[in-house]
């Protein structure tokens, strides 16, 4: 095999690895924030059903907690970017 085709195959393997890695990173990384945000939403709904007069403040706090729970998903996104574009 000559030099050029070896380089070509190596590049192809690298691209394939990047795509697979980024996809797995995003896919698995999106599981835990999804579960966490679902939990937060469920409990917020519970408390709103129990005390409807507190719905406004509960919604505000729910959104903050959602944003904090989202952080791990965002980290996965950043790592996916890193794999795709910066590696």
């Amino acid at each position, binding site marked *: 095999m000559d030099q050029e085709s070896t380089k070509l195959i190596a590049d192809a393997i690298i691209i394939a690895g990047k795509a697979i890695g980024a996809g797995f990173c995003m896919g698995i990384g999106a599981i835990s924030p999804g579960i966490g945000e679902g939990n937060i939403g469920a409990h917020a709904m519970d408390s709103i059903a129990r005390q409807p007069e507190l719905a406004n403040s509960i919604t505000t706090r729910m959104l903050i907690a959602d944003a904090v729970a989202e952080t791990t998903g965002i980290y996965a996104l950043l790592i996916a*970017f*890193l794999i795709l*574009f*910066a590696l």
Partner: protein
Amino acid sequence: MDLFEINLTSVVQLLSFIFLLWMLKKLLYKPFFSMMDERKKRVEGDLAEAENVRKRAEELEKMAQNELKEARAKSDQIVAIANNRAEEIIEEAKQKAQREAEKVLSTAQLEIERQKQEALAQVQSVATELAISLVIKVLKGTLDEKAKREYLINVLKEYEK
């Protein structure tokens, strides 16, 4: 690694943030704080005024209570006097009525006695006459006039005894 690069831009951003903070402090926050202070001061003034009003109300209430107490004492006194007077009047009236009643009773008794005496005398005379007539009727046939009389007189004498 363009995404994660840190360079001079960060310093520029820090400076721009400080500039923005300074500008906003001058334009937005100072009026906001001054307004908040003014509001707080006004609220505090209102609170002090409310406290004053409360104190005054307390004083007034105390005064009113004192007056009420005095009035109650006075009225109690008046009531006691009136009660005494009423008792006296009642007592007087009772005594008077008793006296009157006694008087009426005694006169009535006297009257009754008198009437009784009268009735007794009447009865006596009537009975005597009756007895005499009876005796006369009974003794008409058996005795003469003289013996009759003597006998009757004797009987009467005995009766009178």
